[in-house]
């Protein structure tokens, strides 16, 4: 089981959610795409759906 912490949405410059940004097993700056065939997405989504992980708001786009 992978450990995901500090999970936030990651958006493009138009503000669309395109990935989860998180720390995975201690590794920071991990971008997990919203892709059902990505094994990290499958693992993380299961923990989100189970209520074990809450997804935070995306970091603001600097203007």
């Amino acid at each position, binding site marked *: 089981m992978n450990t995901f912490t500090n999970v936030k949405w990651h958006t493009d410059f138009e503000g669309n959610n395109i990935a989860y940004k998180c720390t995975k097993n201690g590794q920071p*700056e991990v971008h997990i795409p919203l*892709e059902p065939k990505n*094994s990290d997405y499958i693992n993380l989504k299961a923990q989100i759906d189970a209520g074990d992980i809450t997804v935070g708001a995306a970091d603001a786009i600097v203007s």
Partner: protein
Amino acid sequence: MALTKLRPAGQGFVNGNRNLIINGAMQVAQRGTSLTGQGASSIFLLDRFKMNTNGASAGRYTITQTADGPSGLANCLKLDVTTADTSIAAGERLFIEHPFEGQNLQSIAKGTSDAQSLTLSFYVKGNASATYVAGFYDNDNNRQVSKQFAVTTSWNRITLTFPPDTTGVLGDDNALSMQLRFYLHAGSNYTSGTISETWIAADGTKSVGSGTTSIFDSTSRTFFITGVQLEVGETATPFEHRSFADEMYRCRRYFYKSFNYATAPENGGSTNVSGNGGLLGYCGSNNSGIYSGVLRFDPEMRTTPTVVIYGNSSGYWGHLAPTNSGSVSFSSGSGYMGNIKASGVNFGQNVSGNTLLIGFGHLTAEAEL
């Protein structure tokens, strides 16, 4: 002039491209060549060979790509136990896994009346005699088959032929359809039944069976494996050697890094982010809405990958104003990932200030099964 009758492929000749395993000679190790203290979670070191654990065991090991092998094979995957676990709980399990996409296994015709046998061959040795198990798990249909094999202190080539399975068609797509597994440690949930050498519906108790060794029974335990080959049919042919470049290309469908091959991905690095070669970069003003950096994956990856940014000790990319005199700054908005696709990624800038900026750093992309 006498005519020579041509024989169909496979009759009397040893053809190329017959090994279904990628990196069977343990040549490619993009993530590095050694990891210590492993066992709590599943990890890759050598490409395509995953150490799969449910993390329940207290046993720990070091995994290395080691310059040792039988004649003609220069490298192997070596496991060296550093913490023993002789109190094995029922649910504990550790195995080496080689996962397959279904579209790469269509030739075995699994689940049809034309289903083919599979012959697995590999070289192994250890610090002492031991008995482990190799087998397959059909992820599409939840079916399994396994066989025991013996390890001695000398390199031996093991050949195991698995019968055809006329039940359970494998998906013709890029998803995980089957795993080759080398079971090295298992609790009673996996050993209490009789090992099944014919394909059956998934039954954990029959996947390993009794009389097998736990690699965690002593800190003296070592396990070496290389020359892994999987062929359609009932005959093991000599190991099919491929060039390093060939294997590397195949591996990059699942894992890519911008670092030089010999540099393991890491933050900071010995001489900061710019010191590790293969640097990615872009140029743009803050929040311009433009992703001026681009990296195309070759080959295209299996699916949209997980992208990890590598930079300073926090993983941030560097950026500076292009005056050739300013110092490099590192912040989380540098190397902002915009588009992540199986074919490549775009990145740009999300850093305070409107100065024209140059950004640079590294990344890895992982699309493992």
